[in-house]
């Protein structure tokens, strides 16, 4: 079940934004996120906004979605005034690879027509290993994609089964190789650790497979049991054990040590890359408070201190746009303090750390104590999480804020 949207104020039907949010637009990086809300089946752990053909019936299709996407791109371009060329594009989901190379080409073409891309733009698409092929990678490479992110999750068959993932354990590594062969320099593999039943040896095997695939980026996430998912129900019924925080901590340390040993560096709590160029610039843009517009059902946007989010259902999304309305369901205009709080909670997760001047007096004092506790280390006029601090990042954030 997709999770609920946040509570906020109503968003204007014409999609307009306060003038204040538009000032300085274009001087900051501008990103485009495209949400593809389709999956062949739903995985038990996932609470993303995605739908299977059975759930949608005839109410929405990739075609109606693409039509809505084109309309939202036009709306966004007119709301933002002069079109801002995108410095990053990220097509996520759901399962973007379900659209096939042709569908993903259509998506990028629509972006070219409405916004255009900045020189050297990073263009990523997520893909599920089982719906890719050498031809698929060649097709999207031709269309202009520069980066591929593959949902590997694990190399252990029984772990994939608990997660309801359909690919065979060897397929992600093959897919990564195919992507590189098609000319993709930047390939990411996603890992999930802490799945009920995962043994240390399973995680070690997953890490070996990742390293064998020769990718330049790894995202590794502790399994989060989201309310309302099938996994949460299975745990509540007692069919599966709840992931244990101490085990998750050990797993994280395993991941970090394996990747560090193989030439990766962490640049965000859950993200590792082999070089600065290999980092995902689109995600960095989120974490640094830049502007982005999220297109598609349930997508979130941020423009100059205003966050807004679209209606979740693909049918409602398309029909609002067909009627000439904005698909936004709600928004919030951030106060100065909200923006400061967000900077602390986002930038502290980065390896480059949080500038100390973002903190107030009490926060800076607390930062000193956190240094003494071995959770932070000072770096010029910034503070950076230590290895132990990374695992306690949320607690550190709470300490640094009033």
């Amino acid at each position, binding site marked *: 079940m997709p999770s609920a949207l*946040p509570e*906020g104020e109503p968003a204007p039907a014409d999609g307009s934004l306060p003038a204040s949010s538009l000032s300085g637009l274009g001087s900051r990086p501008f990103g485009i*996120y495209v949400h593809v809300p389709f999956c062949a089946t739903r995985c038990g752990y996932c609470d993303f906004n995605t739908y299977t053909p059975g759930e949608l019936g005839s109410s929405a299709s990739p075609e109606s979605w693409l039509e809505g996407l084109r309309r939202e791109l036009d709306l966004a371009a007119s709301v933002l005034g002069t079109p801002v060329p995108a410095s990053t594009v990220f097509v996520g989901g759901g399962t973007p690879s379900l659209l096939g190379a042709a569908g993903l080409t259509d998506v990028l073409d629509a972006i070219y027509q409405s916004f255009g891309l900045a020189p050297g733009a990073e263009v990523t698409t997520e893909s599920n290993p089982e719906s890719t092929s050498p031809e698929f990678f060649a097709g999207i490479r031709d269309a202009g994609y520069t980066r591929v992110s593959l949902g590997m999750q694990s190399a252990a068959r029984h772990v994939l089964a608990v997660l309801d993932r359909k690919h065979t354990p060897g397929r992600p590594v093959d897919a990564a190789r195919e992507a590189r062969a098609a000319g993709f320099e930047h390939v990411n593999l996603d890992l999930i650790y802490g799945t009920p039943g995962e043994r240390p040896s399973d995680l070690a095997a997953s890490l070996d497979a990742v390293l064998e695939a020769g990718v330049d980026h790894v995202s*590794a*996430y*502790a399994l*989060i049991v989201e309310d309302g998912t099938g996994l949460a129900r299975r745990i509540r019924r007692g069919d599966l054990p709840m992931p244990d*925080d*101490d085990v*998750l*901590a*050990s797993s*994280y340390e395993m991941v970090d040590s394996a990747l560090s040993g193989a030439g990766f560096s962490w640049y*965000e*709590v*859950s993200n590792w890359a082999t070089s600065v160029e290999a980092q995902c610039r689109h*995600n960095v843009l*989120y*974490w640094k408070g830049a502007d*982005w517009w*999220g297109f598609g059902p*349930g*997508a*979130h946007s*941020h423009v100059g201190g205003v*966050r807004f*989010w679209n209606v979740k259902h693909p049918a409602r999304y398309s029909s609002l746009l067909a009627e000439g309305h904005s698909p936004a369901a709600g928004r*919030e205009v951030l106060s100065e303090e*909200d923006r400061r*709080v*967000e900077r602390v*909670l*986002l930038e502290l*997760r980065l390896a480059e750390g949080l500038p100390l001047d973002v903190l107030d007096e009490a926060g800076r004092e607390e930062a000193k104590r956190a240094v003494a*506790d071995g*959770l932070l280390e000072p770096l010029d006029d910034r503070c950076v999480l230590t290895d132990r601090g*990374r*695992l*306690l*990042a*949320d*607690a550190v*954030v*709470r300490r640094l*804020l*009033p």
Partner: protein
Amino acid sequence: MTTFADTTFTPPELIRNFCIIAHIDHGKSTLADRMLQITGVVEARAMRAQYLDRMDIERERGITIKAQNVRLPWQVDGQDHVLHMIDTPGHVDFTYEVSRALEACEGAVLLVDAAQGIEAQTLANLYLAMENELTIIPVLNKIDLPAADPDKYAKEIAHIIGCEPEEVLRVSAKTGLGVGELLDEVVKKVPAPVGEADSPARAMIFDSVYDTYRGVVTYIRVVDGKITPRERIKMMSTGATHEILEVGIVSPEPKPSRGLGVGEVGYLITGVKDVRQSKVGDTVTSEKKGASEPLAGYREPRPMVYSGLYPVDGSDYPELREALEKLQLNDAALTFEPETSAALGFGFRCGFLGLLHLEITRDRLEREYGLDLISTAPNVVYRVIMEDGTEHVVTNPSDWPEGKRAEVYEPVTKCTIIAPSDYIGAIMELCQAKRGQLGGMDYLSEDRVELRYTMPLGEIIFDFFDSLKSRTRGYASLDYEEAGEAEADLVKVDILLQGEAVDAFSAIVHKDHAYGYGTRMATKLRELIPRQQFEVPIQAAIGSRVIARETIRAIRKDVLAKCYGGDITRKRKLLEKQKEGKKRMKMVGRVEVPQEAFVAALSTEEPKGKK
């Protein structure tokens, strides 16, 4: 409707003053309600259940805390009479108030549930009434219940008070059956009051109640002379004088009258705003030509049990002070003084008559004043004599004197427990564990027994009553009265978090119980305190000697793995929520302790499933 009872200065020989002695739930309030109805002072349609119990808490718990009284007309053989029914508090904490209410009467209705028999509390009050030479009218109530066994319990009562089983009246307060006959019996059996009409006025205060609109309403029983409006009166314990603004009777709403004569019961209002200026047991006389000797039996209220009350939200401290001041207007026995706890912040050390008094006060503060409170474990008053001869009176474990102690004294009580004889073993075992000394044992009937113990008050206020109830499946009843003090081998056990003593958890316990207390608290706290960013040792210690130890392991992971663009709003809101939660944490040194941990650790109940 006017009645004979509407006007005062009734000749004493036509007056009967009586009270009802009964256990909680044995139907006293229902019987009082029925009497109001049958004598016509309250019409049936205006009747609400338990008319005389005013406070919500009383109605909810079905018990009477503050005594009320009412004047009723009743005719026997064509002769009009005035009955004063004086309602007595029904709980062990209020023994002194009960004794004053009894003092205002010449007779007592002993009301016993025909399905349950007499209980310890009732027995204690009955003995008190017999000592005061009140005429006892034994009555079995609820005889309409299928489970009633009036023959058995009539025999039991006859055995206790020394009458014939046939003399025990049988009523149903619920249906009204036998209530008229009971009132006839009151007129026939209870002696009329005797006093000197021409002597200087002497009236005993048996209750005083604060009323928002009228100030303090003082309930009195005139012994000698008369009390009239517009005269000045004197409180004999303090010599304070007041002008009377109103004198009246209760039937059952207050009605002003032209005064009260010998033997009459009513109220007076002087405009004082604080019940401590109108103390239960004190004697009221006229300012001019007043009596020189007060009536016997007055005593200053004295707290027996102390507990610290702290607002959960420190900014509520001024509200708590104001609320306590307001409660004190109506509660002469409540004492409080500011106290600071390193763990709990600013609060008050409050003195109570007993545990129920504490619970009721806490309830009222939370309910009527909307305060969220933490109360520390209750303790009694200790007297500590040091080797150098200095003496300390300790009302708070934090004030326990360091250094060489020569003798320590604790208050002791005389306890009466009544229970089915099947439970004798269980009760004896419990009492022994609580340092009780058996004083005697009597069979009230074939299968019911009365046990008498001398036991430290400190043991009783802990969890004795709950344990007694659970070991006897609720069948045992308990009463206790103060019985001086006794020397005991007591020590102070401190609980330390990360080496720092948490004053709120310190307790004075018997040396033999120290290890048990220390282990129990350490284990409880390990379960209640969430893991911190560092390891937290929990120790129990007597002075510098550690007697128990537990460790809360450091938390290793507190970070949400994912943080993509659509998560940011959710993440910020989660942070705000967590920050709110942090405000409800108390800091002990650097350890964050949730309020719930304090509340749970200080409650005397064992954690679930651990018994």
